[in-house]
């Protein structure tokens, strides 16, 4: 199967698209940086003892007054920007990835079932999806956060912040997967190989997983990349609005919010470095998503 992948059209096209290659490299670099942050970051920004106010507000290395220890400067608390970004990316990516995984399983499961069985199950799932689509993602995420704040006592809510945000994002994104999966299943279901399997009396779950699923991977992959980008943006937005991750364990969005205070003063790096980092990451993922979309839709090339 690996041989098939390597010789496939996708890889051929990929190797001829400088944009896709660049995007992939950037993504891999950032993901690797985030993953190995604990080992490669100069300091641990979450460890309150590792930084001090004396080192605060130092500019990055290419400006006057910088300190060689802090390549990208420090924030007002004396935390190293480079480490903050790496750890921040780690949080952002982690949350986004888990949220997307949950959304994928939920959406795929419901979409497969709705598309395959049709009838009442389909109607119910689609109604829920319709109602949820009436509320855009940010709204859903904010609502869930709000509800959990109402339900959980204060301390518990703070502890579970991570879980709540992840859940909020996942519940905002599952609808995309469900709709795409359902639409693809509708198309496949009319094909004869599915009829042949049903005729033979194969179990519906086997038909869905072994026969249909491998054939709908394409569109799902596209949605997965787009949703990953959405999840990252969503988390950043939530953090920026102040309902995401707090300042002492900041994600990229939180860092930007903190940095905004310095918009008018001279310490531009506290704001713009995390911002550029975030944008570059999302652009790279979107580029990959575009590439995948073109790959699975040869008519658009």
């Amino acid at each position, binding site marked *: 199967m690996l041989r098939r992948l390597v010789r496939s059209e996708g890889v051929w096209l990929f190797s001829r698209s400088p944009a896709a290659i660049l995007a992939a490299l950037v993504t891999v670099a950032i993901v690797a940086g985030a993953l190995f942050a604990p080992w490669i970051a100069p300091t641990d920004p979450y460890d309150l003892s590792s930084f001090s106010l004396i080192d605060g507000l130092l500019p990055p290395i290419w400006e006057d007054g910088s300190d060689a220890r802090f390549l990208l400067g420090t924030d007002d608390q004396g935390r190293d920007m480079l480490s903050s970004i790496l750890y921040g990316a780690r949080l952002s990516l982690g949350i986004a990835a888990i949220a997307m995984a949950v959304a994928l399983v939920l959406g795929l499961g419901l979409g497969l079932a709705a598309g395959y069985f049709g009838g009442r199950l389909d109607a119910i799932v689609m109604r829920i999806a319709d109602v949820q689509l009436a509320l855009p993602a940010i709204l859903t995420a904010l609502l869930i956060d709000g509800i959990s704040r109402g339900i959980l006592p204060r301390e518990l809510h703070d502890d579970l912040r991570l879980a709540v945000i992840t859940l909020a994002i996942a519940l905002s994104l599952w609808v995309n997967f469900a709709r795409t999966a359902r639409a693809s299943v509708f198309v496949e279901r009319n*094909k*004869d190989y599915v*009829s042949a399997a049903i*005729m*033979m*009396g*194969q*179990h519906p779950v086997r038909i869905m997983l072994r*026969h249909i699923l*491998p054939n709908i991977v394409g569109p799902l992959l596209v949605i997965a990349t787009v949703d990953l980008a959405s999840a990252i943006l969503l988390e950043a937005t939530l953090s920026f609005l102040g309902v995401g991750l707090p300042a002492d364990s900041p994600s990229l969005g939180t860092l930007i919010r903190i940095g905004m205070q310095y918009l008018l003063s001279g310490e531009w790096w506290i704001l713009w470095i995390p911002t550029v980092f975030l944008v570059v990451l999302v652009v790279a993922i979107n580029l990959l998503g575009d590439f995948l979309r073109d790959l699975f839709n040869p008519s658009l090339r």
Partner: protein
Amino acid sequence: MLTVENLSVRFRDRYGTTLAVEDVSFDVRPSEIHGLVGESGAGKSTIGAAIMGLLPAAGEVASGRMMLGDTDLRALSPAEAHRIRGKRISMIFQDPQTSLNPLMTIEDQLIETILAHEKMRPDAARARAIDLLEEIGIANAATRIRAYPHQFSGGMRQRVVIALALCTNPELIIADEPTTALDVAVQAQVLELIQKLARTRNVGFILITHDIGVITQVSDTVTVLRAGRVMEQGQTRRVLGQPEHPYTQALMAAVPPLDRKLDRFRLPSVEGEEVDADDTAQAKEAEDWLMSGIGSGGPSLDLQDITVRFRGERTGMFGPREDFVALDGVSLSINPGSVMGLVGESGSGKSTLAKVVAALVQPASGQMRLDGDPLQPLRTRRRDDPSRRLIQMVFQDPYSSLNSRHRVIDILTEPLWLFDLEKDQARRKRLVKAMLALVGLPARSLDRYPHQFSGGQRQRIAVARALLSRPGLLICDEPTSALDVSIQAQVLNLLKNLQTRFGLTTLFISHDLAVVRQMSDDIAVLKDGKLVETGPSEAFYARPTAAYSRDLLARTPAVRFDKPTT
């Protein structure tokens, strides 16, 4: 009028360039209907597109000359070429459903086209449009011209398409598979129309099609194409009636005749599909295995009063719901070990009947019996019911009947383990190899994926899959309709061989009366969900009883040279 000399067209793709059309020459005179016939990939549509200047981005004319009267078509600038389109040459396509702009009335589309090429007042254009529609055979043209495309039926829509092509009085019309998407009766009308127009308006036609019957009936001259090259050309009667080129001869030998039943199609041996000696030994093994399962021959099938209703939309908020009756009280009996041919036009319900038997569609009422035992319909048939194994189906579309993500060996071993027919993995593999040999495919096919095979080969795999269940009843739903003529003949030969050896009870479904004649012992005719006639096949073809059947037979374009081509 049109002269094409040494035309070559090439396409660029990621592997390099290919010549889709190579050194093709022919000419078309006014009033002449020239047929371009060939199997898929012959390059017929490409030639039409090249003449129109409508080649896709990856294609270009490599060499040759195309002269329309005194105009060199290759030397035209894009703007000039666009001005010629419609004015001197027009083109019509296969699917009338998608050829018309759904958002514009017929009137607007006609008037716009006329005014694009001639200066006149809009009401003059409108008058011409109305006259044209009446000439084409659309009654009440003055009122109907204000309608939208979706308000016309398929045949009417194709007439509108023809009207649009004609309204600018071109010298030449290129028709690319104009009747392939239409029913037999409608097809006959449209072909008649084309012949009349060629005569009365002095328009030349290039008729592109794969259907040999259509060519025989309608075209004056023909060019036979294969893989982009001309095999033979000349007067239709001579080329197709007494072919000289071996390809044309093989092609004509593969066409199923309507007027008699062949024992087998006489075909040359196919390159690349030769079966080696030890494969033949393996084939014998599969044969024995199958025979031991079938025993005394296939079961009988009895259908009583089958009715199928599909839920329709409500006509108003509180109006009645108009259900679509796909099958209306159909009763049918198939004798054990015989082949029942089921014919009808599209929408007649033939596939639906097959699906009822296969438990893919639930009948509203009716009973079924397999070899005397009751056969449960969809909702009550259990997944482990023995009929699941005994009834197998070969589907129409070879491109969707095999899961493109599974390898051939996965596809073929599935029935073996599903029905507990062979538990040992090694023996399973041997059996599968043997079955491949039986259908004429090499053993190395096992590790390949479906997209690596041609349509005909895929159908063979589908047949192998069906046989590996050790079935008693085989349903073939338009098994060759998507295949080229010569490939169709091979597959039909295969099915005939299997029938002779194993005597499976078979339900053979097709809209093509000629094909059905070749395969069936008995025949049943469906129209709009009702059974019109049934009986022994040869008797039917010699003298059909029902008026509808007679009509159907008469309108089927057949390869006959005794009838004058008007």
